[in-house]
């Protein structure tokens, strides 16, 4: 469906714009934030004002400044955890799919275990045991988010392995490493990119969840921690919606952007969903020059037909 593709592109463009904006904010947060980190600039839960458009939080800090600084933590955790997940997932998936046999069985049993492990409780337990710090959070999230990637790359590797050019490369005596890096990985890229974007979304979710439970890095500001502060320090009873609404919306915006990009890449790589067999809601008729019933295939026919096309009409189904 051509219009589907058309509509799809602007969505991806907007999503990319959101991510680019977040990235810029994360890079230049210290310049953009109007107040220093940790500085009290007004009353506790002060309402939004011209000086502080998003109001003040439980410690009298400027919410907008916190929001800008929080972007950095969120992106670092999202990207780094996703990278960990991609590396583990690809390594496991490609190895299992390429090697096959017992290597495949063992790796897949391990993957199965990580699939049944309840992710959030696991993260809570490990984060609690390891103690709160940014690198621990990243590792924990990464360690629990690679299963999907492993399954997808394994399936793809298994189908690629039997393709002619890979069999040929093997026949010609290419090393396994060379086959994997030269022939397999390039073909896996769209799949990996699409899934990595989705993993960033889960990682951001997980960070917000851990921070909400007080297991986040206590030294850095993040959107998840802002929500936690608002909750544990009774922003609700103070009626200070501005303390938790903005960070939640920011998380949603970044997660939506990642999902749209992930979906978009997946759809471009696998354009299978383009048609359906339902009756169209309208029958599209094109006006034809009134001709006799018989084939009126004359000489300058193609030119005339072009003009006819522009006069296409759409008839409502009665």
């Amino acid at each position, binding site marked *: 469906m051509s219009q589907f593709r058309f509509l799809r592109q602007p969505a991806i463009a907007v999503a990319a714009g959101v991510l680019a904006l977040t990235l810029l904010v994360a890079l230049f947060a210290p310049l953009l934030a109007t107040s220093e980190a940790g500085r009290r600039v007004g009353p506790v839960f002060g309402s939004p004002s011209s000086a502080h458009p998003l109001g003040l939080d439980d410690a009298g800090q400027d919410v907008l400044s916190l929001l800008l600084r929080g972007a950095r933590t969120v992106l670092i955790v999202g990207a780094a955890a996703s990278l960990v997940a991609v590396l583990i997932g690809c390594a496991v998936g490609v190895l299992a799919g390429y090697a096959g046999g017992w290597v495949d069985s063992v790796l897949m049993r391990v993957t199965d275990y990580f699939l049944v492990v309840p992710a*959030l*409780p696991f993260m*809570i*337990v490990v984060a609690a*045991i390891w103690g709160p710090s940014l690198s621990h959070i990243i590792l924990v999230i990464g360690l629990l988010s690679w299963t999907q990637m492993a399954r997808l790359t394994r399936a793809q590797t298994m189908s690629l392995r039997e393709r002619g050019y890979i069999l040929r490369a093997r026949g010609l005596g290419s090393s396994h490493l060379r086959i994997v890096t030269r022939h397999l990985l390039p073909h896996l890229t769209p799949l990996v990119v699409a899934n990595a974007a989705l993993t960033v979304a889960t990682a951001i979710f997980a960070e917000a969840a851990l921070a909400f439970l007080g297991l986040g890095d206590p030294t850095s500001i993040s959107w998840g921690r802002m929500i936690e502060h608002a909750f544990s320090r009774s922003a609700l009873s103070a009626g200070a919606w501005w303390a*938790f609404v903005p960070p939640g919306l920011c998380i949603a915006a970044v997660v939506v952007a990642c999902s749209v990009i992930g979906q978009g890449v997946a759809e471009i790589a696998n354009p299978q969903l383009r048609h359906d067999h*339902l009756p169209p809601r309208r029958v599209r008729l094109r006006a034809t020059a009134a001709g006799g019933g018989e084939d009126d295939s004359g000489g300058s026919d193609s030119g005339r037909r072009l003009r006819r096309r522009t006069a296409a009409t759409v008839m409502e189904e009665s």
Partner: protein
Amino acid sequence: MNRGLDLVLRRTAVALITIFCAISLNFLLFRVVPGDAVSNLARVPNSTVAQQQALRHEFGLDRSIGVQYVAYLRELVHGNLGRSFANGQPVSKNLGEALGNTLPMVLLGTVVAILAGIATGVLGAVRRGTRTDRALTVSSLTVYALPAQWVGLLLLFLLGGVFPSGGRVDEFLIEPSPWQHTVDVLWHMTLPSLVVGLTLFGQYALLTRTAMLETLAEDYVLTARAKGLSTLRIVRHHALRNAMLPISTLIALSLGSVVGGVVLIETVFSWPGIGRAIYSAVTSRDYPMLQGAFLVLTVVVVVCNYVSDLIYLRLDPRITV
């Protein structure tokens, strides 16, 4: 008949083996993480070395791993998960209560999410490319992208005056009749269930839409159309019936993680369920509770996967392996 029984037995065996593996790995997880669990978790303020030693001995951490493992399995077979540090009650009793509180709340939200999600997804797929489809997809995606704890806070903020802001029952209700009690619990359950439902709804709607689009492209849908069947009949009896295969499996799969992910929602609404049990076990360093809760959640996930397998067997006549 025999074939079906055989398959069910096979799946059951797989589920049991998975549970055994999970139990074993659970044991390992709590024992071989860098720095043993006691020194990390039992950071009791002002604890002396002697106290820590005593704690180690109590958990048998001073014995060899093999001995510990056998002891662990033996206790487990007898349903003994140890005693909670926090209230001295058997862990199994605490967890049983917690799970009993969590499941109805989660189920209520999930059922609503399944019905609304499938309806939305089907409508979006049938009206694909239209304004309706776009509006539904965008709202599903947005709802999916909102963090559960945030949705909980927002609902509390907006409806906190109407619905109770936390807990499972009204503590001041004196000797309520069973009817009063049920109404009270349902009333308390409304907001947390709504959050469960909302966070799942987006996911289910997107999933259903994709599954429906895939089946609508199949040849048998064209056949159904050539047969002159109505669009409603094509969608219900031909497309949805096939799309339900992936949808029901994925929903059953997601349920396991929902029970685990309910930590956030239960924290927001002070709901005394399994998620909150985990959270308070972490904050109060209640090691036996943590291990037990984790085990129970893993088993819940395995059971959900098992159920999803059975649903698939029931729905898909083609499975023969």
